[in-house]
């Protein structure tokens, strides 16, 4: 193997630096840190602080380190919390199962029309989130364009319905978060060097073996990113449950919304948000650990 000389490392070459130049990287990263401090760290601190306060809206909330709020909200809303994570996970799996082949097809089979197909994929998402979701109520209506004819043909029983069921909510989540899965997977597949696939076939690998041993491992960083981008917002979503859901499909996002806006119970809402954040982080880390983050991230960095 050829040995390259790393000229960018200070130990290997001694270049004269201008005074203050060593600070340059810190100056460059400063905007990033400020952004993080202003829009992530500060809100999180405020949220944690609020979650430990007690009081009511009119008379104000005071810091009392009331940790019991967490126990209360988890006890009261654990059903909705678990349900949200399950719906989010189900939607993520559906997104992966549908989105991967789509991304694969666009990356390898769409030829010079790749950008056209990507654009077509994104086109519906120029319409408002709520309107798109509401439109499913029209498409999937009990006697609508889809179910109506099937019922008339006797293929479905008259009482059959999709709307107002968990399937409708998971379907809505899948639909709404699909691009967040397709795009990162597409980017990963697009970067797969055709020479690698050629080499694989040269070595007498079947098409299946080429896919499972070469293409799939190389695209895993994309899948990893896609899962993060889908699972986290899908679990916290409240629009789909509100518009497509039935009597027992309330998600934790709906509860947080009610706690904050209707009940004006800011500590409760903050504690629930924090619990949700914790649950999502835990789920994501477990997922990363089982998949082997090191390898995924290094493959992504190549």
């Amino acid at each position, binding site marked *: 193997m050829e040995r390259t000389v790393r000229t960018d490392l200070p130990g290997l070459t001694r270049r004269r630096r201008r005074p203050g130049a060593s600070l340059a990287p810190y100056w460059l990263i400063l905007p990033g840190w400020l952004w993080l401090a202003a829009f992530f760290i500060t809100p999180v601190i405020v949220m944690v602080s609020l979650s430990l306060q007690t009081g009511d809206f*009119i008379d104000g909330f005071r810091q009392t380190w009331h940790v019991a709020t967490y126990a209360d909200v988890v006890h009261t809303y654990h059903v909705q919390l678990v349900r949200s994570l399950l719906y989010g996970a189900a939607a993520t799996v559906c997104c992966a199962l549908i989105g991967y082949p789509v991304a694969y097809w666009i990356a390898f089979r769409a030829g010079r029309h790749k950008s056209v197909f990507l654009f077509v994929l994104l086109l519906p998402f120029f319409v408002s989130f709520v309107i798109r979701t*509401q439109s499913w*109520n029209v498409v999937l*209506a*009990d006697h609508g364009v889809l179910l109506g004819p099937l019922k008339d043909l006797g293929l479905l029983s008259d009482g059959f319905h999709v*709307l107002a069921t968990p399937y409708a909510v998971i379907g809505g989540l899948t639909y709404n978060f699909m691009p967040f899965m397709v795009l990162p997977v597409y980017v990963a597949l697009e970067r797969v060097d055709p020479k690698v696939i050629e080499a694989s076939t040269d070595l007498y690998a079947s098409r299946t073996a080429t896919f499972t041993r070469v293409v799939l491992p190389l695209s895993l960083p994309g899948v990893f990113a896609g899962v993060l981008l889908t699972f986290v917002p899908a679990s916290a979503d409240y629009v789909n449950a509100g518009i497509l*859901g039935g009597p027992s499909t*309330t998600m934790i996002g709906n509860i947080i919304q009610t706690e904050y806006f209707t009940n004006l119970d800011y500590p409760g809402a903050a504690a629930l948000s924090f619990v949700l954040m914790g649950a999502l982080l835990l789920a994501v880390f477990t997922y990363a650990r089982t998949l082997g983050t090191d390898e995924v991230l290094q493959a992504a960095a190549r």
Partner: protein
Amino acid sequence: MPQYSTPFVPRPRTLPPAGPSRRGLLRAAFGAAALAPLAACSVPGARVHVPTGQAEIARAVSGFWAGRKRSGKLDFVNYTQYIDVDPADQSRHPTLAAFTRESGIEVTYSELIDDSASWFGKIQPEFASGQGIGYDLMVVGGDSYLTKYIQLGYLAPLDHSRLPHFARYGGAAFKNSSFDPGNVYTVPWQSGMTGIGYDPALVGRKITSWQDLLDPRLRGRVGMWNDAVQMGNVALLAVGVDPETSTPADWRKAAAWLRRQRDAGMVRSYSTATYQSSLQRGDLAASLVYSGDVFQANQSGSKLEFVIPDEGGLLWTDNLCIPSTAAHPVDALTYMDYAYRPEVAARISETVQFVCPVPDAQRIVARDAAAATGRRRSVLDALSTSPLVFPTTSDEAKLRHLRVLDEEEEKQWNALFEPIYQA
């Protein structure tokens, strides 16, 4: 079996840390610094003294209005589709244009309010910071949020000496609401009724009572709401209690009624966002509805019925009010009075088709109907005789008002009714 993916990615070796590193210490210091603000930030209370009694209110009124002058501008914020529109151009509002022509006051009209809760959440921080919300006139539902606006001192007390049309034409049934006795801070904008809307073709019979929403033949086809205020008050009617004078014991009975309905699998969904379209499409056979919903749906071809059940229906009122931070309060007051002229109220009713708080407007709508032709005539005819817009006295006798809740009661109320629709 050899792994083909691993040779590409050699694992880097990392040295184990030896003792507490500088980075570790730094991290601990940052951690401690981050904890400090947790204790510091709290949300201050905002309760103010609310004037009571004639003399105190009169002092508050004169204190607020002394020295205020008309400025020729008015920023008006409303719910969506809640004022008259020009049939040819939906963005034009004839009564506002006429107001500007007559008074010289330029109106900036916006429809930004979706519901009381999110609007309150949006503007409350602006009120709390004392910077004003940029509006001189807004519409607030007659519910616990109105109570909060008043308790927090966010509303200007109204100078009734400058509201002669309200005094003369405002319907007695709409004045003096329990949320704002004596109309100190608000005057009604539009009212509405909550009752049952149903499709007779799907239900196959007449619905007359709240108990019909427990009929097994309607299982899975009843629409209810994710709105604790309306659900609780409706359920109180269903168990035969007048909401306004109800006690926590009654609330528990009402919640049990709703739970029975839920456990019997009657309800398809609890949603204020979708019940209207679901009812029109036939996904719901019967639902809680506002009176205006059915009138509007039937204008676009549906054949729905609205019924005020025997046990009673709810009459609620959305109100005009002036934020205490308003930059142009005199102009807002001028508009308030203008809205109570029967001609103006009639024009607005002809579009929004909710219950009109100016009974004299009925006469004007009938006159407009006689002058109109074609489809417009039939709409106006229907409107001027509709008990959903101008309730008859026998309907009015069946209507009850929402329960006013104080802070403690509201907590109790929400804890009872929210779990039913948020399961």
